[in-house]
C-alpha cells in the first residue's frame, strides 16, 4: 500500500487520503476583470507534468486537513509533503529521492 506522510499525523496508508488537484493555484482576486480565456485557465487548465507535481491532498480519514505534496507522476513516488500555505519546496528531484 502507498504510504503518504501527513504533515500533522505522520506516515499513513493511502486509503485515508483523497486527492485534491494541482496545488498553488490562487483564485483570481477579481474574476470579473478576467477575460474568458484567463478564467478558463484558472478553472480548467493545469500543468500536467511528467515528473514532479505539486498537488493538494486531504487527510480525509485522519486530521481532515488539506496539505500539499510533491509527487513524481511517473513513479508515483512522494518526494515530500508540506503544510498548506507553505511555498513549494525547492526540489528538482526525480524518482528515488529521500521522502
Amino acid at each position, binding site marked *: *500500500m502507498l504510504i503518504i506522510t501527513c504533515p*500533522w*499525523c*505522520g506516515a*499513513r*496508508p493511502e*486509503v*485515508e487520503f483523497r486527492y485534491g488537484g494541482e496545488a498553488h493555484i490562487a483564485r483570481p482576486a477579481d474574476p470579473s476583470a478576467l477575460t474568458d480565456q484567463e478564467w478558463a485557465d484558472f478553472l480548467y487548465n493545469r500543468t500536467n507534468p511528467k515528473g514532479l507535481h505539486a498537488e493538494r491532498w486531504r487527510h480525509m*480519514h*485522519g*486530521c*481532515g*486537513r488539506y496539505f500539499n505534496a510533491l509527487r513524481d507522476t511517473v513513479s508515483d513516488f512522494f518526494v515530500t509533503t508540506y503544510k498548506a500555505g507553505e511555498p513549494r519546496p525547492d526540489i528538482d528531484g526525480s524518482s528515488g529521492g529521500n521522502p
Partner: protein
Amino acid sequence: MVESASMTTPLTPANPLHVLAAASRDVAAVRLAALAPAARLVFRGREAAIGPAGEAFGVPLPREACRFNTAGGRFAFWLGPDEWLLLVPNAEAAPLFTAIEAATTGLPHALVDVSERSVGIEVAGEKAAFVLNQGNPLDLSLAAFPIGMCTRTVFHKAEILLVRHAPDVFHLDVWRSFAPYVWELLEDARRELA
C-alpha cells in the same frame, strides 16, 4: 385515537448495537462490548479559544497530534490541529456545552453537540490489535500506536475514531448507522479465535 407514550415523552435513541451485542459470543482472546452512551462535543477553535475551552472542560486540549488527555472521567481527543472531540461517558452534554460556551464567548470557535452521532465499541484482549488489523492498515504495535494515542482512521469502508487505552484495550467511536457494519466485521475477524 389513543395517545401513546411516544407522543408525550421524548424518544431515547436506541443503541444500534443492542441486538448484535446481546447475541455476541464471549471470545476470551478478544472481547467486544457496546459502550455506554456518552456526551460528545466537537470543539474547533483558533488559538485564543483553545486554552479556555480546555479549562472549562476540565481537561486541557492536547496540542500534540493524535493524542488524548483524560482527567476525572473526561476525555479530550485530538482530531486535527484545530479540532477536538470532548467525550464524557454517561453524562449529559448540555451542562458541558454551556460551560464551554461561557468560557469562549467572543473567541472564534465552533462547539457542536454530536452526542447521538456515534456509538462506542470496546475491543479488548490479547488479540485486539490483530482483529482491528483485519480492517485497518495502521501499525498497531505499541511503538507506533502507544497508549494515549487516538486518531481518525478507517475500519474496512467505515470511518472510525480509534483510541488505545491500554496495550490490549482499544475503543472505537463510529457513526451510528455504520456501527452494525463495523461490529459484524469485527465478529467476522475474531471468528477464528473462538
